[in-house]
């Protein structure tokens, strides 16, 4: 699996940035600005596999409009997407493709495992010889959305959870703060 730049992240539930030694006012505000921009425009990658893909399309459709979160722009190529919503059952024949597609995505990339099938094999875990028991066996997953299929609101809640997690990250501090270099 490609070496992912370590997302320096604290406990997502902890309040913002308490325990970083080098509290530089400039870097943290830059971080906040960067995170606000990034989490406000998470571009998902059209990656519909099975039934959850229909609910993902329903989330993009007018009733549960995903564009209100800036995440409605479904990009078809992995090069322009920064969130892969694995929506549906991951079969073994498809797993090798998922790895390649995940590797092709530009670096700050996130994965939402939508539905029971992508999380742990779902209803196909017992006799599904061709089903991969959970997508986190091939790619790292950030948020698990339960449901079979999850309601569109559950997917939106999952994306909001991801946005909360993204806003905790500190790319700028990690790159320029003195504490890191020492």
């Amino acid at each position: 699996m490609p070496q992912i730049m370590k997302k320096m992240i604290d406990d997502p539930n902890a309040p913002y940035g308490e325990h970083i030694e080098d509290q530089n006012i400039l870097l943290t505000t830059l971080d906040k600005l960067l995170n606000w921009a990034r989490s406000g425009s998470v571009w998902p990658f059209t990656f519909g596999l099975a039934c959850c893909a229909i609910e993902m399309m329903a989330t993009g459709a007018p009733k549960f409009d995903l564009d209100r979160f800036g995440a409605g722009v479904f990009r078809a190529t992995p090069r322009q997407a920064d969130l892969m919503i694995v929506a549906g059952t991951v079969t073994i024949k498809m797993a090798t493709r998922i790895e390649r597609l995940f590797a092709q995505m530009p670096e700050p990339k996130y994965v939402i495992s939508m539905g029971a099938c992508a999380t742990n094999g779902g209803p196909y875990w017992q006799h599904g010889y061709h089903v991969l028991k959970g997508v986190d066996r091939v790619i790292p997953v950030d948020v698990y959305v339960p449901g079979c299929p999850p309601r569109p609101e559950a997917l939106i809640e999952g994306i909001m959870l991801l946005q909360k997690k993204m806003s905790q990250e500190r790319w700028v501090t990690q790159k320029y703060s003195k504490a890191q270099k020492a």
Partner: protein
Amino acid sequence: MDTNQIHSRLEKKFGSAIIALEEVKADPYIEVSADKIFDICKYLHEDSELLFDSLVCLSGVHYLPTHKRANGVVVEKPLFEIVYHFFSYSHKHKLTMKAVVSLDDPKIQSVEKIWKGAQWLERETYDMFGIKFIGNSDLRRILCPDDWEGWPLKKDYVTQEMYKHMRVPM
């Protein structure tokens, strides 16, 4: 024409190749010997009385010694059953036909020349059971990856432990 009339008509034409007509719960079927399958299907397709112009479904079934077949006969030797469902749009009648193939060398003639749709159905049966269809122009696995071990739908199938670098079982 219902299954009995079709059975008598086939018996007149092919004699011993038509093994039996089974009056089974819900759907009667005709059992046929496997090596004459191509001629029988050609006759079913071309005969003016039958005109089966659509092969609706082709499925494989695997029996182990303790299992009971649809007509209640308990199987002694493990065998494969290939079931053909035909339908005729012009005469509006249907037919279920079965052919039995032994397990050690599962071979049967392909009917792809008669119904083009049969190619994929045969490929799927080959993928699931390992029954070779002689004459199928492109006999490859269709659902499982090409380097998958074993025939998944056989009753005694055991999943392989690893596929490339992924653990298959739970």
